[in-house]
């Protein structure tokens, strides 16, 4: 109840304080100054750099690349450290590859042919999940063959398995340690945060530099991307074990390891399995993108399709990725519910029937594997049944038809958006002297994020200038900001609707969940088909990619607004619009800033990948760095610039979110503190959080 009271007080404070926001005047002044500066000093001191142009710094990076190439076999750092890691990872990757994709001998058939694989994965899905996901698995894997993408799908599957194995091997123990020890947690959390704001795209190049291109570095890149979710959720699961249960176990005299194995891990199991699910999905997403550094699999045809503007080919491969994603998601989800159900006593008869069924299934699996190792038709998916090429044709035809038929809509939408919104904003960022733009950015950082965010932003901007990619960074920033604004608008409209009505929520949420399981790569394909290659295409893909996250956060924030408060507002005769604008949105301010933060990170990741389909700027620099050896250094530098943009945007919005937590609603944070901490540390905590506000008054 007291939380409700506090929130009520909060809302009152908001309406009084918020009539004219503190930041309105300074912001207005800055924007006017910016506009004037843009007109007067047009194209002066704006640090332009042509697409094929490089700076000495980029050339120096090229030399680093050459040096690594020359010394890879002799330098001890490589021989004993990087190569050792690569060998271990590569060993497992090649083992899975030999089982599922191909061996290096004879006909290069895999150890287990398609028939064996399908029966085996179906049986495993049944074992860890239920018969429904088993059927789904069988259908999904069969589709890979029918699409003519069996080998590619298995390559992706093998690399995903390898990456998930290492992600769990690292993530779960680290997560347990972080869950047990606050000190380890303080150490690990910033690293995980950093790994999360890194767009997946950017560390491919450095990793390829160190580990050289191929499956091993693809797996390493994927582990970096996929290990954080399971680490976080394991730590969360361990940490949220009820203190009462842990204490009761202590009172019975459990040892430390008994405590971990019989109490903490079983109670954290659900959270850990959810983490495994998220890591699997992240791994699949990254493994496909790793096609850029020569990782085999479904990413290759997607990439080829995108680069040659063959939407059909990209679509078919994308479809296979989505199917694999759905299968992996459903099976791991079913496994997590099974973990709960299995312990509960379903009737003994059904348990027995299941056990018998599984044993029979195992026998069938053995027969299928044996067949797939002895008979050619069971080893190699029959090429006669290949609907992939046909489907690619259909899609290409459909895409052409859409572009022709709806050209009035699509081209106009693209034109209007580009000419009237994107170009002017981009021009303001790129044609104004860099000092003025930097000042504008820093003022915004100061107004919304506070002094620390401003310092971090200043450092990030300095690095961007130093790597010589100011103009491209500003173009990317322009796309990112515009896409984020649209994402937030979408997020607020849909999120508020969902937050206010459980019916709408139930209707939309499954779609959002499904959208979130899809690898980022795949999003580009339909937009390329609709709009052709352009900056707008990349922005549209980014909006759709980021919207589900933003919508969900806002919906949760709005629905978390105390029912009492809404009721009270209704009782005073507020209409729905007043309730939304005066009660629900102001009270979910924290969710709004959090959604902006997540939206920015997602949009940036996607805008950058959009470099593949005409997004230009930093994303294109990265892509060009992969394909043209002379632009390698520039691509690497572009990666650095992207990271700097990411950190800057994240710090500003995080700090803004932190300051919104300062309001009374956040007092839950304090109650979480131990009884004895409340007195001393609690007060310090309060002061810390108030500081940024004091600076502005």
């Amino acid at each position: 109840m007291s939380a409700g009271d506090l929130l009520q007080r909060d809302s009152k404070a908001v309406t009084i304080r918020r009539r004219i926001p503190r930041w309105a005047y300074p912001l207005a002044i800055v924007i006017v100054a910016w506009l004037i500066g843009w007109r007067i000093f047009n194209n002066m001191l704006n640090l332009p750099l042509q697409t094929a142009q490089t700076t000495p710094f980029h050339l120096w990076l090229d030399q680093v690349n050459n040096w690594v190439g020359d010394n890879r076999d002799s330098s001890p750092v490589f021989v004993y450290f990087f190569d050792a890691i690569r060998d271990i990872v590569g060993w497992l990757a090649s083992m899975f590859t030999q089982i599922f994709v191909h061996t290096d001998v004879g006909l290069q058939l895999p150890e287990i042919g398609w028939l064996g694989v399908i029966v085996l994965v179906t049986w495993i899905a049944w074992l860890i999940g239920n018969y429904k996901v088993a059927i789904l698995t069988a259908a999904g894997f069969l589709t890979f063959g029918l699409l003519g993408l069996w080998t590619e799908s298995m390559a992706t599957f093998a690399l995903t398995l390898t990456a998930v194995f290492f992600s769990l091997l690292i993530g779960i123990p680290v997560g347990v340690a972080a869950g047990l020890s606050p000190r380890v947690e303080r150490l690990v959390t910033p690293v995980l945060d950093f790994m999360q704001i890194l767009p997946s795209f950017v560390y491919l190049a450095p990793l390829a530099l160190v580990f050289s291109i191929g499956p091993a570095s693809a797996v390493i890149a994927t582990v970096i991307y996929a290990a954080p979710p399971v680490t976080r959720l394991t730590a969360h699961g361990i940490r949220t074990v009820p203190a009462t249960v842990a204490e009761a176990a202590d009172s019975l005299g459990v040892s430390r390891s008994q405590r971990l194995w019989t109490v903490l891990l079983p109670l954290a199991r659900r959270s850990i399995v959810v983490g495994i699910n998220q890591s699997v999905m992240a791994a699949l997403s990254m493994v496909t993108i790793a096609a850029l550094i020569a990782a085999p699999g479904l990413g290759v045809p997607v990439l080829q399709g995108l680069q040659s503007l063959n939407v059909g080919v990209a679509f078919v491969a994308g479809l296979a990725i989505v199917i694999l994603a759905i299968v992996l998601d459903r099976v791991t989800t079913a496994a997590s519910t099974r973990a709960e159900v299995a312990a509960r006593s379903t009737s003994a008869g059904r348990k027995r029937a299941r056990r018998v069924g599984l044993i029979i299934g195992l026998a069938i699996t053995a027969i299928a594997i044996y067949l797939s190792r002895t008979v050619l038709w069971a080893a190699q998916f029959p090429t006669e049944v290949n609907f992939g090429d046909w489907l690619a044709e259909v899609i290409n035809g459909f895409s052409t038809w859409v572009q022709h038929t709806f050209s009035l809509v699509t081209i106009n939408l693209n034109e209007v958006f580009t000419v009237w919104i994107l170009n002017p904003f981009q021009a303001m960022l790129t044609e104004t002297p860099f000092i003025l733009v930097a000042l504008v950015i820093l003022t915004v950082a100061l107004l919304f994020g506070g002094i620390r965010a401003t310092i971090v932003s200043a450092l990030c901007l300095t690095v961007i200038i130093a790597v010589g990619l100011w103009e491209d960074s500003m173009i990317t920033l322009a796309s990112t900001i515009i896409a984020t604004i649209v994402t937030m608008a979408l997020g607020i409209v849909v999120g508020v609707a969902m937050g206010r009505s459980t019916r709408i929520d139930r209707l939309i949420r499954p779609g959002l969940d499904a959208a979130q399981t899809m690898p980022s790569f795949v999003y580009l394909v339909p937009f390329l088909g609709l709009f052709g290659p352009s900056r707008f295409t990349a922005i549209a893909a980014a909006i759709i990619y980021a919207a589900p996250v933003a919508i969900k956060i806002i919906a949760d924030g709005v629905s978390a607004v105390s029912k009492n408060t809404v009721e009270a507002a209704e009782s005073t005769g507020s209409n729905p619009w007043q309730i939304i604008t005066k009660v629900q949105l102001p009270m979910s301010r924290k969710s709004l800033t959090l959604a902006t933060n997540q939206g920015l990170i997602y949009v940036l990741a996607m805008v950058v990948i959009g470099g593949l389909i005409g997004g230009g700027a930093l994303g294109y620099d990265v892509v060009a760095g992969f394909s043209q050896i002379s632009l390698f250094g520039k691509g690497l530098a572009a990666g650095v610039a992207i990271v700097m943009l990411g950190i800057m945007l994240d710090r500003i919005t995080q700090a803004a979110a932190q300051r919104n937590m300062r309001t009374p609603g956040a007092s839950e944070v304090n109650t979480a503190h131990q009884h004895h901490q409340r007195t001393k540390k609690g007060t310090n905590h309060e002061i810390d959080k108030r500081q940024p506000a004091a600076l502005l008054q």
Partner: protein
Amino acid sequence: MSTTAVAGTDTESAAGSLDVDFSIRNLWKVFGSDAAKIVADPAMAQLSADEILEKTGCVTAVRNVSFDVARGEVFVIMGLSGSGKSTLVRCFTRLIEPTAGQVMMRGQDILNLGASELREVRRRKVSMVFQHFGLLPFRSVIDNAAFGLEIRGIGKAARHARAHEVIELVGLHGYEDRFPDQLSGGMQQRVGLARALASDPDVLLFDEPFSALDPLIRRDMQAEVIRLHRDMGKTMVFVTHDLTEALKLGDRIVIMGHGEMVQIGTGDELVGAPANDYVADFVSDVSRSQVLTLKWVVTPVPDDLPGDGPSLPATTVIVDAIPTVLGSPVPVRVVDNGVTIGVVDRDAILREVAGEKSF
């Protein structure tokens, strides 16, 4: 030792240190970074909990507490929330590490035990029942009850056999394969009780075990504890904030306030002779006639009392004396160990029953 002497109705108690299960001496628990320094500093140690908080920011939950718990008695620690009672009981087996002082259990210095010795104490000698049960949600009733035996490394058949016994004992027969979330609160606490009993400990600690239960269930559970105590005779340390519960269960009661012992004694000693206003306030709502014995209401023997009138033992509770006193034309003699210590007449009885606030 001195406090054991007033061990109330504990009839089995005899002289000698062997009859003390827990001996607490000068126990302190201070939360905060410089806790040990505060206790070690004589000037600081004299201050009250509030003053220590003001000066150092440290919270004193237990302040210089000493008492003995006799073997076989039900010893109640009672106080309002924040009085340090739950912290105190956790210091018994170092679920919370005391800052200073001594905890002896049957001659064993608990605070000097190594980790594995301490685990042995928790596994075999002292079990605890918690307010929020602390059951493992993914384990069935029988596996929860057997959990303590399992971590001792006892085989499945043996621990299940024992678990069946204790489940029977707490009246949960037939529920062995249920899961905690399928049981009512009262039944969950029975599982907690079974788990504590399974290792056949010497001492049972209860931390507000029935506070989370509704009143009718609470009454049943209290009766259950009384029955178990009667049948098994185990030493029990019972923490509660409910005076009625304390009076019902406790052989002796210690009242805590601001981390300190305010008064220790039997129920009728607390009600009949509250040490200060704090205790008096506590017991003011108690129905005195149901708690006090005749020795608290005796008046001097009048000179004209006939020698052949009725008499009652001094340990009779007032309500139980009503028929005799009202039925007697003359005041009733009150006898303690064969010695007449006074008389009670109708007026005295009626004053206690009707007035309650007659003093």
